């Protein structure tokens, strides 16, 4: 890639003149709340999703505390049911789905494709407001006593039997869905229309491929959950018989509609993390991702096949055994592109130049945890096996390996990688490696025992449980407390680094990619001159790259 022109003013102590960038371009609350800069909107999202993540984690902590003992002795059962419901709702809809697309995607999509901004900057800002509006509805429901249906809102419990704030919570999810759609639409148009000259589809970074695939799912899938929520509301408020058999409805129809969105939503959560993973592996092995086209098309294959497997959530829900057979084999197929990605990432390390920097630790942790999450996913897609572990802690462990081991590891790895790009600062190396280690160890200690608990038969969503399950539950709670420390540390040192961190320079990792061709933090318009692209995204064996590393130095 042609390096864009050097910044007009270099930041030097002698001149005492600060280089202009998006953070110091304007000051004041107004300059943030009315910004149309995708990078500032990403920061706004970062603040919002961090707040929701903290809230969701607090619920998780309380759940784990209750489960320390077999007796239900810390909370009333009603309170416990609200806790796990709110944990799921907040984590899924307000953290996992928006986290990587809305924070990293917003920040990086224009930078990675050499554009000045997203195609619809105002729509982008609107999406953040809509997200928060949805969040306020849900928070209102939490403050007034919460909701106790489980994040899955299964009927007829949710439409007829629950006396909690189902409607306001569901309305919050409904509204937030529009922010997803705005973001997805924006990405699709931007990636189609605003790529820099010479940036063909097969020169796009893999993060862009996976973001594109994710956006397709968002735009096609989210309307279905919106309709489903409206139908639940219609039945609850107007007593229309849709899902409640007492009114002539079909409760399993709800599960079909719910999972038609919510299973693809799993891929909304994991595909962006896979994109981050490809970027991290390439940057910290300084090597082309092996099988670039395979990895790119694997994202698209996952997006397409992901729409055809929803019925595997209903193997014991009275679904026809022949339908179950079809959903089982399709679920096996969707696992293959994921497996292929894992092999390609691992092979990329071969003959690489592997750095042990913090983002790479997350990236390597991701591969291990995602492998186990994926393999247990194929296990539960196996019909005869699923019957026993369905709705047990085996499932809980499996999807946390994907959601926490995959998505959150990817998100944290990405934040650590692009933090110098976002803030222009470095965070403490040792402390951040320690945090990565704590996250990895704490995560495994929390969730691995749950696989065993599940195979032993402990059902999920139990407030109290038979005493023989206690030892494994205590291990899990101990792990959760380690995991909690691992999450608090980055929050502290990221905030600390904004004021006290060392300046990172433009490209501390010696990475290639259009986003590293501009300054860190980038100017409001991203690039001083429009970049022209002449080669693929991960070309490290070039004179130019070598010269730049020698000139600027790297911490890698």
């Amino acid at each position, binding site marked *: 890639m042609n390096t864009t022109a050097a910044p007009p003013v270099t930041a030097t102590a002698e001149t005492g003149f600060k280089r202009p960038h998006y953070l110091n371009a304007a000051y004041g609350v107004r300059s943030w709340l009315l910004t149309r800069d995708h990078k500032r909107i990403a920061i706004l999202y970062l603040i919002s999703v961090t707040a929701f993540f903290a809230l969701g984690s607090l619920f998780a902590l309380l759940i784990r505390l209750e489960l320390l003992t077999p007796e239900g002795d810390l909370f009333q059962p009603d309170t416990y049911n609200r806790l796990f419901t709110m944990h799921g709702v907040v984590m899924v809809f307000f953290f996992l789905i928006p986290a990587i697309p809305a924070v990293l995607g917003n920040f990086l999509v224009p930078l990675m494709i050499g554009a000045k901004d997203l195609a619809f900057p105002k729509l982008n800002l609107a999406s953040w407001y809509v997200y928060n509006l949805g969040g306020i509805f849900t928070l209102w429901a939490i403050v007034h006593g919460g909701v106790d249906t489980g994040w899955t809102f*299964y009927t007829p419990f949710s439409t007829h039997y629950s006396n909690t704030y189902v409607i306001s919570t569901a309305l919050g999810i409904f509204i937030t869905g529009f922010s997803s759609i705005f973001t997805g639409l924006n990405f699709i148009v931007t990636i189609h229309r605003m790529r820099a000259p010479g940036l063909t589809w097969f020169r796009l970074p893999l993060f862009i491929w996976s973001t594109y695939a994710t956006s397709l799912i968002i735009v096609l899938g989210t309307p279905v959950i919106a309709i489903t929520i409206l139908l639940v509301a219609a039945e609850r408020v107007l007593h229309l018989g849709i899902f409640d058999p007492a009114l002539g409805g079909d409760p399993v129809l709800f599960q079909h509609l719910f999972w038609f969105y919510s299973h693809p939503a799993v891929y909304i959560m994991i595909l962006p993390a896979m994109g981050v993973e490809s970027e991290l592996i390439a940057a910290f092995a300084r090597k082309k991702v092996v099988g670039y086209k395979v990895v790119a098309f694997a994202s698209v294959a996952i997006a397409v096949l992901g729409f055809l497997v929803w019925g595997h959530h209903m193997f014991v829900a009275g679904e026809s055994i022949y339908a179950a057979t079809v959903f*089982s084999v399709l679920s096996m197929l969707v696992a293959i592109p994921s497996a292929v990605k894992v092999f390609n990432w691992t092979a990329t*390390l071969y003959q690489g130049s592997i750095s042990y920097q913090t983002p790479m630790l997350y990236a390597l942790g991701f591969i291990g945890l995602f492998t186990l999450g994926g393999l247990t996913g194929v296990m539960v897609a196996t019909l005869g096996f699923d019957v*026993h572990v369905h709705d047990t802690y085996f499932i809980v462990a499996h999807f946390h390996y994907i959601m926490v081991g995959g998505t959150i590891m990817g998100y944290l790895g990405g934040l650590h990688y692009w933090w110098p790009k976002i803030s222009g600062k470095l965070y403490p190396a040792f402390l951040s490696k320690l945090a990565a280690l704590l996250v990895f160890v704490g995560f495994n200690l929390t969730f691995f025992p749950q696989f065993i608990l599940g195979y032993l038969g402990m059902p999920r969503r139990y407030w109290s449980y038979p005493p023989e399950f206690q*030892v494994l539950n205590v291990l899990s709670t101990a792990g959760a407390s380690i995991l909690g420390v691992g999450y608090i540390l980055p929050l502290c040192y990221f905030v600390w680094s904004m004021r006290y961190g060392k300046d990172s320079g433009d490209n501390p990792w010696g990475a290639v990619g259009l986003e590293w061709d501009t300054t860190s933090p980038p100017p409001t318009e991203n690039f001083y001159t429009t970049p022209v692209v002449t080669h693929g995204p991960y070309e490290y064996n070039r004179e130019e790259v070598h010269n730049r590393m020698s000139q600027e130095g790297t911490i890698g």
Partner: protein
Amino acid sequence: MNSSFPLFPESASTHAGSVDALFIIWALVSIFFTVLIAGLIVYFMARYRRSHPEEVGTDETAAVWLEIAWSAIPLVIALGMFVWGTRVFFDLYRPPANAVEYTAIGRQWMWKIQHPEGQREINTLHVPVGQSIKMKLASEDVIHSFYVPAFRIKQDAIPGRYTSIWFQATKPGVYHLFCAEYCGAEHSKMIGSVIVMEPRDYEAWLAGGAAGKSMVASGGDLFQSLACVTCHRAGDTGRLARGPALEGVYGHTVKLADGRTLTADDDYLRESILNPSAKVVAGWEPVMPTFQGQVTEEQLSQLIAYVRSLGSASPAGAATASSSPPVAATPPAAGSGAPQ
């Protein structure tokens, strides 16, 4: 803290072995791939550790045969496990012909169980070793799920329809019965026990309890008291008959007024009692009133058990039996669950 610390569930049904085999093979496959990937990562990390800050990797990329191999091998393994898992699954859902049918009705927050002989239990299920038992499930309110980990079986109980699963216990003992589908405040208290007994002990237990009438007999009583018998008179095809006779209906093909045909099964009978005008038999007027709200889930099961007991009766035999009380006409038969 509890001292017992199991790492593997008890196995007490004929299904347990086949499910465990699936699990163990999958676990070995998972361990193999996890160790392979983790081992490669650790090896590459050590072998290709960056030696100076400006070092870059090679331009090596994987050979095409490697890409094909690591796509094809997981595919073959997954498809193989799919076929095996599906066979185990079909076995879980296809009860043998000699299975005896027990009924479990879920409600917030208990399991109401009825034996074919008429015994009723709440949150406990006594069963004999060696007998195939088909659990017919229904729910009075929300979705529940009948789960016995030691048998490796689970099936949701769904309001408004019947579902079922079967098992054959192999080892006497007391095992957990859980509700596995979240069903509200006391979900985690909707637990009970399955008590597996030697057939001799089971007979003694049956004899000792206040058995009451069998499912079929209770259904026969309801057939009288709800006045079903006034219209559905056995053998009556004459001018005064207002509904089809029910002898020989169960498990057989029924022709509907709108030209469709279906097989009369539990769900069809249930619908015909609760919503009679939905599927009217050809040749009859939709005059039957609904019994929605007048019969409980348990009574519905009894009525259906009774109608099913008429199923095997030949029309001629049924005609002669029509004058005698239905209760006497049909002793509870172990094999009555299987359509002929």
